[in-house]
């Protein structure tokens, strides 16, 4: 990637190292390298930029775009009212903070938001989310530690229906995907939400810690099995990790990355941009 205008062994080896170092994973890296080898057979490129653009395009191809029924922009019209978004993921990934960021963005866009504090398990989970809800200036519905998370969701969705709320953001407890009883609980929360609104949740966002390695692919597989994951949020990309795991996840499970977390403050959320992501990946 430094001053080269043709794809030779040295170029491919360097690319391989960059991709592996970015958590792209062995299989996907080899597939990308094969695709580039194939595409560039017998070609010389007029400039380093042209060659790099070809590489970036090959990688960008792997990233699925968000569908129109799950708009990324916060001011876009929503397909239902209330529009229920459930946030799931493993422990410490950044769900609660991401819920706060989403609430803030929807609120800024003029939408009426309510937060459902459905993490009723972890110490001070409600207190943490309450502080965020107050900062975002949106109401929160919760029942504290030990309550039934499904009943929090039911109450929140019911309240949203009666109050004409636009968006319900459901924060859930962190859970490891290999714990079937916890995954079953998540499926149950979804079923209970459907009792009130059959199409709910309209979105299920899986929050992935951007520093996670290949286990993220397994997380995406398992969460998708139990709840219908519709998109990804990748957090902590303000750190040095590149989040390359989304390439494997995107191609295997057809899941788009909707947002990325780039800090601990309420406005540290960005809309996912495939081009800037791939550029940063190759830096």
């Amino acid at each position: 990637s430094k001053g080269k205008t043709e794809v030779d062994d040295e170029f491919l080896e360097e690319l391989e190292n960059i991709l592996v170092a970015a958590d792209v994973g062995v299989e996907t890296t080899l597939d990308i390298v094969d695709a580039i080898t194939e595409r560039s057979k017998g070609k010389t490129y007029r400039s380093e930029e042209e060659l790099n653009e070809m590489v970036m395009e090959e990688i960008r191809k792997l990233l699925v775009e968000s569908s129109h029924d799950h708009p990324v922009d916060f001011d876009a019209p929503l397909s239902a009212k209330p529009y229920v978004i459930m946030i799931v993921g493993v422990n410490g990934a950044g769900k609660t903070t991401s819920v706060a960021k989403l609430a803030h963005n929807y609120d800024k866009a003029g939408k009426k938001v309510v937060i459902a504090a459905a993490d009723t398990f972890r110490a001070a989970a409600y207190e943490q989310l309450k502080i965020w809800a107050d900062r975002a200036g949106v109401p929160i519905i919760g029942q504290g530690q030990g309550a039934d998370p499904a009943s929090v969701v039911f109450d929140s969705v019911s309240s949203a229906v009666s109050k004409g709320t636009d968006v319900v953001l459901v924060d859930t407890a962190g859970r490891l995907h290999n714990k079937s009883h916890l995954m079953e609980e998540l499926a149950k929360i979804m079923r209970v939400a459907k009792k009130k609104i059959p199409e709910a949740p309209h979105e299920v966002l899986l929050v992935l810690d951007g520093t996670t390695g290949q286990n993220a692919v397994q997380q995406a597989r398992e969460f998708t099995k139990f709840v219908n994951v519709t998109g990804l949020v990748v957090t902590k990309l303000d750190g040095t990790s590149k989040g390359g795991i989304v390439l494997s996840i995107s191609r295997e499970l057809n899941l788009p990355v909707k947002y990325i977390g780039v800090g601990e403050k309420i406005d540290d959320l960005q809309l996912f941009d495939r081009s800037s992501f791939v550029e940063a990946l190759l830096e």
Partner: protein
Amino acid sequence: NLSDKLELTFKKLAGQATINEVNIGIAMRDIKRALLSADVNYKVAKKLVEDIREKSLGESVIKSVSPAQMIVKIVNDELTEIMGGENQPLNLPPKKIPAIVMVAGLQGSGKTTFCAKLAKRLKKNGKNPILVAADVYRPAAIEQLRTLGEQIDVPVFSVEEPDAMKAALGGLEAAKSGAKDVVIVDTAGRLQIDEVMMAEAEALKNRLSPDELLFVVDSMMGQEAVNTAKAFNDRLDFDGVVLTKLDGDARGGAALSIRQVVEKPIKFMSVGEKVDDLDVFYPDRMAQRILG
């Protein structure tokens, strides 16, 4: 898994007269890919495979009736050795009252929960610990530690002001006047590239002079585990590592990379969300897990 892969590779090679430089290359490539898939850092994996390759070309392997088995054993032994021989316990000087433990690490790695787990374990071993809430930034971080402290009947010290140093030093004073023999200081999650926060961690360390400064790291971390651990170690020279969320199914290659690069002992494994879910570290079990 790796063992099966190598068996297959050598079945294909079985027809050949000898194990040699050329055909061992395939086995080494399989090993490298297995390590990378387990999140071992690619530079660490490269070096490790070179060592394994050298040993694999030794007399006993070449003459062996089952080279695949021998090579798997070599890989296993290499990994176990890197993971650190035997378990290294917490080093709290018995005459020092109070002994001081401080934790540090990236956001969400499991520090706060670990502090409570450690407090419970020490209390069970006859110690009289106090928890100090020096994460003055995260919403309800103090509340979280308080709630955990109440669960295990261990006092939690905190201050009103968002001043981590004030909390840490205040906690130390509270320990002395309250006849506590161990102080466990929880700190905020931070990025290794956040100069302000790394300076805070360094300042806390310098003022507290902890007997044990532990780097808490999520076992599912990817390639950046090395750079992160190295930065924390260069800055804070920590005494040991705590690996968390090992109740998950991440292979945990980050642990190998960290051991290889900073050469500090892994002292504990966090294996669950409950306050009892803390294990002492077993190097050979970790090696097995990484191999898959």
